[in-house]
Structure formats: C-alpha cells, structure tokens
C-alpha cells in the first residue's frame, strides 16, 4: 500500500443517458496514486470509455455524469465550472485517444496541432517550439520543420499515436487517461507505443488510467486492475491478485477465453452477451450468463466483498477463491501433434506473385496445406496475407504462379473453376458486420450457397440448414432473423454456417475473430476446431494474432512483406524460431504477466 495521497479518487460515479435514469455506468469507485497505472478492463459496451472520459469531467453527447465525485489532487472536478474545467483538461489531466487517425484533425498540420495544445494553457507562444521539440524527442519522433509540416494522414498509425502522446504530455499532467491507445496497431508498433507510455509515466511520476480490452497488455503495464462488466466494476485489486487468481466468474471466464502465446489451450467462450443499459436484470448483471449462479443472484445486487486482497461483486466470491485458486488450463490434445502421415496436400501454393495494379504485394509465396489440418497464415498488416487468401478463394485474380487444389490447378477467379471446386473451397470474411446481406434473413443467407451448389429437395435443405445451425450452436429460431438482430459473434457464426453448409473441404478464414471480443472469439475458435476435427475439413486460418495460432493450428506460415519468412509446425516455429523476424514478432506479443504457473 502506498502512503502517498491519491492523485485521483473516484467515488460512486454514475453516468446516465441524458434525461433518463438509464445508466451506462454506476457505482464506480477507485483511486490512482502517483506513478500507479490502473488498468480499466472490459469488453465492448462495458462502459469503460464513458468512465475514462468522466475522469476529465466530460460526457459524450447523449450521456451525463449524474452522481459521484472525481477528485483530482483533492479537487472534485465535477463541481467545477466549464471555464475551470477547461483549465484542468490537458493541463492536470490528459487524454490519449483510441484511434489517433480520427482524433487528430485531418486538415491541420501536426506542428499546428501541437502548438494548439500548447497555446490552450499558455499566455504566449514563447516556449512552444522548445517544449515541442523536447516532447517529440521523448516520444521518439524527429522535430524537424519538415516533419511538423506534415498532415496526420501522412504519418503511420504508430507515429500518429506518438503525436497524441506528445500532446497529452505537453503540460506534464498529474493524471493521464489512455483509452485503448494501441488498438489497431501492429504488435511491434504496439510494443513501441507501450514502452513510450511506460517510460513517460515513470519519468514524470504521473498516475495513469489505462483502458483496454486486452488482458495481456494490461497485465504487463498496470499495477492494479479494475474489471468492468455492464457498467460496474466487478473485480478490483492489485494486478497480480486479480489476474493471478481471478475470483469473479466473469473475470475467470475472460481468462478461459484468452488464447496464450505460450501454450496451446482449449478456449472457452462465454455464451450470450452482456445486458444493454436499461435492460439490466435486478440482480447481478452477469447472472444470466453465469454457470455458477444461485437463486439469489437473479434478485439481489451483490455488493462489494473485500477478499483476498481485492474487492469482488459476487455472492460466491469467497468460496470460489477458496476452491479454485488457479484457473484450470487444459492442454488441448489435438493441436499437440501435427499429422505425421503424409497424404496428398489439399492445397499447394507455389511461387505465387500477386499484384494490385502495378504494385506487387506477393513476391513468390510457396507453402502447403495438408489434408485435415489447420494451417495458420500469420503476418502483420501489409504482409499480403489477405491477398493470398483472396487468390485461393477466387477473390483476387491478378496473380501468377501455381495454386493446386487436391493436385489440380486452381485458375484465378471463380468463373473458370469447376462447380465442384467452388463448392469445396469456402471463404469466411473478416468483418461479420459487412459480410451478411442486411436485406436477407439468416435462413436465406445460409440457403443461398446450398441452392446454388446442391440440388436438394426442400426438406433435405431445411434439415441441412437446421443441422448446420446446431453445429454452430446457433438457435434454429435464427433462420427468420435479420443480421442486424444478432451480435457480432453470432453473425460470424452465421457466416461460418454459410460456408460450412455445403460441406467444403477447405475453409479459408480471414481474420475472422479480429472484430470480436475475446469471449466471442473463443467461441468461434473452439467451433472451428471442432468442425475441423469432426468433419475432415482443412482450414487456412489467416490472422495477425500469434496467440490464437497456438489454440487452433497445427502448422504455421509466417508471411512478411509478401514473402514467407518461416514455416513449420506450430510447436517448432513458436518455440524455436529460426528467423529474426519471427523471433521479433514473438517477442512483441504482449506477454501475460499474471501468476499463471
């Protein structure tokens, strides 16, 4: 326990929709001392961003801070006038946005934006240039006039985020609020930005609130964590306690859903979705999804129980901590050994070069997907992995080189391929919000490839659709729903059902979980693993997420800059990488720093 006075103390904070009593966050209390980093963790819709903004006395349009105090260095900023608040924002407390590409003004040069941040709290501009060059130096950017005269879109994502960091540290605030600052960045860039954040916080002794959905990132950075679910903090305490032995069933669920870069593990997702603001049950918000629920959970709101060095909102917290001090990790049996028996590969990629117009993005890529196996194609953005997947699927036609499917050549584009091939290779798109026709029902969407490829009687077709929905743990009542009535995870399962329904032999999954929360991602990954095991299906799993590879694939192909850097079994490549690029990639993956073992 630190003896210093907290920089920030939040007490009973409640944020409501304007003019209503429907809250998006309620009863939020925590404190942050100088030099401490608090990780505010939650999935989408948990209210973490609203809480983060409230720390600057700010609520987005349609929301209002209705109760509670936010005391910054002893002053409750919620009682300040607009003018006083303006004096504090950017000076005593600063904010780093989630997406710097939209948070920097597109029509102002970065130098101007830095100067604006200076000007906001300075009577004159005298010290501006000096301070700006100091800051750019600290965040590792050149302070040349040429660089300062660039527009935000002329910088990379990592550079944009470092500009945002420089703006945040302009006035050496006592508290800094970081809202998912590395989401959307490649792992290597992410590591750089996180290092900058850590060193700045340490150097200036600021308190930090780090909002994130990424447990691994938080574990490496935060001294304490607060886990949010449906607008409330459900578990809060020192990082090593909470992550080492999570005691709320939701926190435990998150960990079971989380893939690990260190070992293969069966992922367990959390079925269902969090209740929306206004639709929350009278009892515990998590009760409807909780496997450990008792009668009392549905009717009574659990209060905070301080136990084992952390506070938890669960009636069964004490017994759970006692009985399960460690979460059980099951080493999944199937992914351990790669198929030794060599059969005809289902897909051979040989010297594939692909272009977009005049720019070549793949420079001779070769690898093989064995039958009945899952091969992960891993790469950072710009590596060409999606292009390659597109070539195989028939989406991308501009390529040279050999693609062979079960020994016979695969021409570019769908039209020259045989009906049988088109059926046998199915593709699942990255973004389930865009890959389902909003004007069609789930039933129509799944029926479409079935009608096109297979001549079946109506009854057979319906039976097949019902069976496929069952396979993907989707309710049969979904057939009459429209995509916008489903959650992201459900949509992606419908997209997989559409591919699965015609019994393909090769399934190409392009970043299929990158738009989803971890709990939904885990459900998808386990379903895919199950399908692959049971149905003699081969999967080409395209991803940027190395941790996921462990949990789903037997072999891995690492792609960088349009060439294969390294390939082999998952075990070999991840445990004994031969290439420097792979080593760096593995090193950059945020490590889990909980007391797991």
């Amino acid at each position: 326990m630190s003896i210093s006075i907290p920089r920030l103390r939040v007490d009973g904070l409640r944020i409501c929709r304007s003019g209503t009593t429907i809250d998006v966050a309620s009863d939020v209390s925590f404190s942050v001392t100088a030099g401490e980093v608090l990780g505010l963790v939650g999935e989408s819709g948990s209210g973490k961003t609203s809480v983060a903004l409230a720390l600057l006395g700010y609520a987005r349009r349609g929301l209002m801070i209705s109760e509670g105090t936010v005391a910054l260095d002893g002053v409750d900023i919620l009682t300040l006038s607009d003018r006083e608040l303006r004096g504090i924002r950017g000076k005593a407390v600063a904010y780093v946005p989630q997406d710097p590409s939209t948070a920097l003004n597109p029509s102002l040069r970065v130098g101007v934006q830095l100067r604006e941040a200076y000007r906001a709290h300075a009577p004159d501009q005298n010290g501006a240039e000096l301070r700006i060059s100091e800051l750019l130096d600290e965040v590792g950017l050149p302070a040349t006039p040429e660089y300062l005269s660039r527009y935000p879109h002329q910088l990379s994502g990592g550079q944009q985020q470092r500009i945002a960091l420089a703006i945040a540290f302009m006035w050496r605030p006592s508290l800094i609020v970081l809202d998912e600052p590395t989401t959307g960045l490649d792992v290597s860039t992410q590591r750089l930005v996180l290092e900058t954040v850590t060193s700045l916080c340490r150097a200036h002794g600021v308190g930090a609130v780090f909002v994130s959905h990424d447990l691994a990132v938080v574990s490496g950075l935060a001294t304490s964590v607060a886990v949010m679910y449906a607008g409330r903090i459900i578990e809060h305490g020192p990082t090593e306690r909470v992550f080492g032995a999570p005691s709320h069933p939701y926190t435990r669920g998150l960990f079971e859903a989380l893939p690990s870069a260190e070992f293969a593990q069966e992922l367990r997702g959390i079925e269902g979705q969090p209740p929306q603001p206004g639709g929350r049950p009278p009892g515990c918000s998590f009760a409807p999804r909780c496997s450990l629920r008792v009668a009392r959970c549905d009717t009574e709101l659990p209060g905070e129980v301080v136990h084992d060095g952390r506070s938890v909102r669960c009636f069964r917290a004490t017994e759970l901590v006692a009985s399960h001090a460690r979460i059980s990790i099951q080493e999944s049996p199937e992914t351990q050994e790669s198929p030794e028996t060599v059969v005809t590969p289902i897909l051979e990629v040989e010297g594939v070069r692909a272009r977009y117009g005049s720019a070549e993005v793949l420079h001779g890529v070769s690898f093989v997907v064995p039958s009945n196996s899952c091969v992960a194609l891993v790469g950072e953005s710009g590596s060409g992995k999606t292009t390659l997947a597109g070539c195989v699927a028939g989406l991308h036609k501009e390529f040279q080189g050999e693609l062979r499917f079960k020994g016979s050549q695969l021409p570019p584009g769908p039209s020259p391929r045989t009906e049988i091939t088109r059926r046998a290779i199915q593709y699942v798109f990255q973004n389930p919000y865009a890959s389902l026709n909003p004007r069609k029902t789930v039933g129509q969407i799944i029926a479409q490839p079935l009608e096109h490829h297979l001549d079946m009687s109506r009854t057979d077709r319906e039976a097949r659709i019902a069976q496929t929905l069952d396979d993907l743990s989707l309710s049969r009542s979904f057939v009459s729903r429209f995509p916008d009535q489903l959650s992201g995870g459900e949509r992606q399962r419908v997209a997989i059902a559409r591919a699965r329904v015609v019994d393909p032999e090769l399934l190409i999954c392009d970043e299929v979980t990158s738009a989803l929360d971890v709990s939904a991602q885990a459900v998808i990954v386990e379903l895919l693993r199950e399908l692959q095991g049971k149905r003699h299906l081969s999967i080409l799993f395209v991803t940027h997420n190395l941790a996921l590879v462990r949990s789903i694939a037997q072999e891995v192909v690492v792609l960088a800059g349009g060439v294969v850097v390294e390939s082999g079994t998952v075990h070999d490549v991840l445990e004994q990488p031969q290439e420097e690029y792979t080593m760096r990639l593995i090193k950059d993956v945020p490590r889990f720093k909980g007391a797991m073992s």
Partner: protein
Amino acid sequence: MTAEIRTSAEDVLAPKIRGQWRAILSRVVRTKRGATGLALTAVVVLVAIVGPFFSPYSPTALVALPFQRPSATYLLGTDALGRDVLSRVLSGGWLLLCMALAATILGVCIGAAAGISAAYIKGRADGLIMRSADVLLAFPQLVFALLLVSIAGPKLWLIVLAVALGHAPQVARVIRAAALDVSERPYVRAVEIQGVPRRKVMYSEILPNLVTPLMVEAGLRMTYSIVVMAGLAFLGFGQAPPDPNWGIMINENRVGLQSNPWAVVVPALLISLLTIGTNTFTDAVARVAIGVERQPVELTTVVAGGQE
C-alpha cells in the same frame, strides 16, 4: 423438436425479399413528417382528379368581365379574360399531375437502369454512360426542355420526354454511386465467389439494397417534375392556351394581381402544397431509411492485421 423444425422450415421458405418498401412506407406514414406530406399531397391530388367533375362552369367559357373579385356566383372571381377562376382551378391540375408522374417514372427508370449497369458492368460501358450523363447535365433542366420545345414545338409528349431526360443523368449518378458501394461489399463478394451468375447477383444481392435510395430519388424527382412542368407551363410551354393549367393561370393572371389576386394565389397555393407535400414525404422516407440502414458499428476490437 419436430415442431421446431417445422417452423424453421417455413421461415427458410419465406418470401425472397421482405416487403421492404412496404415496410418502410408504413413506418413513414407513422412519422409526423410522413403523415403531413402524405396529407398535403392527397388533398391536392384529390382536387386535381375529382375537380373537373365539380367545375361549376366550363373552364374555357367567358362568363363575366375580367378580374372580378370573388362573389356568390363566381366564388374565386374571374380571370384575365373573364373566365370563372374556380372552374379553371378545378380542371387545371390533372394533366399537370399526369405529365409529372409520367416524366418521373420514365426518368427514374432510365436513370436507375443506366446507373446500375454502369456500376456493375464497369469499364467502357461505365465511361460511355457517365460521359453522356455529363453532357446532358451541362444543360440546365429547364433549358434542355426549352431547347427541345423550340425544335419540335410545345407537344405534351415531348415535354414529358424532355423532363424525363433531364432527370435521368441525375438519377443515374446517385444510383451508380449507391450500386458501386453495394457491389464492393463482402456479402456480394461472398455470393460472387460461389460462381453465381452476375445477373442473379445484381437482382438478388444488389437491387434489394438499393430500394431506399431509389425511393428517395423517385420522391425527389417527382417534386422536381412538378416544379419543372409547372414552370414550363408558366412560361407558356404546356397545354395550348384556352385549356386551364395552374402554371399558365399564374402567368396570365398576374397582371391583375391587384384586382383579383385569387386568380393567381389559388393555383400557386395548390402547386406549393403539392410540392411541399411530396418533398416532406420524401424527406420522411429518407429519415426512416437512414434509420433502417444504420448498422450497429461495434468494431470494438478492431483489426491489427486488417485491410491490406
């Protein structure tokens, strides 16, 4: 269990596309703007259609002195030539309405067909279609109509054609942009890579997603058709002189604005109510459609290795 499969089976076989436009319209009329727009339009349409049957005098008969103020015999007074204003008002709308409707349907159909083909066929066809649209757009719509009228005389079919051809390039541009956007969506790609023929992709994947822009375009073009038709009539290019027409009435009676303003005000009011009605209704459609279109954008854990 069996019961459950039964219901799901029926759902799978449910009609191909949900009665989308009907669904939107039923929501539109329940909005304040939608109901107002519909009511205004309905009143004027009613006057235009049943009006001729209630006309107290012949609309072309000279019944009294010019520009008489309203009286018990001539409820709205008389016009520049001494004809009964009420009779002319009641008979002067239906042809205008029919012509506007015809021009709208023709213009939207030509424009939509051109726009969708340009977007989906791409390449040369696209270039050709959009270049011709550019040339047509270089003529202000009214001027284009005047040009055609000056060549072949004020024939009614020609005016309809001229207005329709004025609409077509505008509709084509809007629909092309919408169709281009839709045709790049992953859900269209998902069907294309199955090897489904292009015509079917266009019909069953793209078209259903263009219903709302088409509805908005149709409403907008209807308003403009009435505006241009009435404007042409006002300038003297419409029906031949003795026949009544709201646009002509405004022009021929404005010299007597001080003696009998009603001869101008009433037809002007009817045209205004009609166009305000259609415009308000279209606005309501656009608002509802945007609400329908809006997708929950919840890309929270956005991509690291995403777009390449």
